[in-house]
């Protein structure tokens, strides 16, 4: 019967629409399902994943010493040229000339957080920090010098 089919068709169409409305109606009446995180408000409790790749940093210990030998492995490993290591020659206690890092320049604006420099570093001198709020008013402020002023290489790191 054509009429019966017609009515069945209409009825099943209405049913399918009603199931959809039931679902949205459920979420409308259950505000507890809301998943929004209000970001600037929850800054205090917000915890980033500990492996989150935010930016490259060079940890310094309390004596203002780091582990960077200035070997430029990271510079070579970087695919976009965002690391530039400027080396100098230092004269150590025995009077020998030794290569050391003068400035470890890091371009955060060009970095893609690929982690290849960290993998390449033989002395674990650099690591990824899980900071993420990098916005600055001027692009040049994203060019950073990773080694602190007056810092020197830790004893025993070759």
């Amino acid at each position, binding site marked *: 019967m054509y009429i019966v089919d017609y009515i069945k068709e209409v009825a099943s*169409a209405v049913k399918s629409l009603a199931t959809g409305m039931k*679902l949205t109606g459920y979420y409308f009446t259950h505000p507890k399902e809301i*998943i929004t995180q209000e970001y600037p408000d929850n800054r205090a409790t917000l915890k980033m994943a500990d492996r989150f790749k935010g930016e490259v940093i060079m940890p310094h210990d309390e004596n203002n010493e780091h582990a960077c030998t200035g070997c430029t492995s990271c510079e070579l490993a970087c695919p976009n040229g965002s690391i530039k290591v400027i080396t100098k020659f230092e004269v150590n206690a025995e009077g020998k000339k030794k290569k050391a890092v003068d400035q470890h320049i890091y371009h955060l604006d060009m970095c893609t*957080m690929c982690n290849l420099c960290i*993998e390449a570093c033989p002395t674990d001198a650099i690591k*990824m920090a899980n900071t993420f709020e990098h916005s600055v008013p001027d692009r040049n402020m994203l060019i950073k010098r990773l080694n602190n002023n007056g810092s020197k290489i830790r004893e025993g790191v070759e």
Partner: protein
Amino acid sequence: MYHINELLNSDNTLKPSFVAMKESDDYTINIGPQHPATHGVLHLVITLNGETIKKVDPDLGFIHRSIEKMCESLSYRQYIYVTSRMDYLSSHINNHACALLVEKALQVEVPERAQYIRVIMDELTRIASHLLWWGAMAMDMGAFTPYFYAFRERELLTEIMEDTCGARLTMNYMVPGGVMHDPHETFVHRVSKEFLPLLKSKLHEYEELVTGNIIFQNRVNGVGLLTYEDAISYGCSGPTARASGVHCDIRKLYPYDVYNKVQFEEVIETAGDSMARYMVRMNEIKQSISIIEQLINNIPEGDFQAKTKAVLKLPKGEFYQRVETARGELGVFVVSEGGTTPYRIKFRSPGFSNLSCLDHITKGSKIGDLVASMGTLDLVIPDIDR
């Protein structure tokens, strides 16, 4: 708009290249490069007759970064990370293809633990990609709400990725010889105890909200018909081709890593329309869940990375590696001269071939059908442009 001097010769006659433009009665519309339905910077010049489409002419290149040229100056460790930027929704799988190619060329034995992790990551990426596609496609159809439901599940997934890989979208987790880190200690628990049960409990919502909806079904049934022969001839792959009945799942045909150890079905539909493509992807989510369930609790102990040399040099020759991304078959073709960088690299991206059938499948349909077809082809523009 053209300036009048660009249009006319000095003797006030129309320049030859604009004669066709003037004489044609065609009603052309530019869909894109900025358009809500293209999900990126795809430019389609469509010719209309009323609401009916006469011709679709894609114009690409708005996000072309020439990754192939870039890779010619990158080492075999570095070129992996660039491929995350191609099909950013299946970045793990792109990286996997590149890592596999280097391993194949250098004959590196990848530890079994790394293989398991890679396959789990691939499938998680596939789920994430299909979820996002599901939401975005529903949005193309005019239903906004599914997008948020899909992102709710995907959010947990990206958090799991973030724990292990340190990034949410472009992870760069695969390295030649294995993976970069060991999975996070909560990884197994979060995937098997949190994510999979959540996703399984929400799958019925997708069916209630979109799949069963009569309006949606009318929008996609019989729309964008791609026959078996055309699917092969146009070089379609992945869910697009499988919806036309083509057996083309690289995971089944040419298994890599531990895909030959897991049981899963190659999802095949035969209708070839948008609904079939939709159903293939929805069922693929279920298959991916089953693959992950088989692997997640059986990850063997051991190394997560094989020992490789610091500087990788591929032997002279040509290498081709293909994998199944969420969109289809990704082929990496490397010509090596024996150096540290590829001499020539070609990425056979699934989106590029899938896009080429768009004109064919939308001819004679309405503008709404174009959007539906584009939605179910699951185009990712950086994947097309590379």
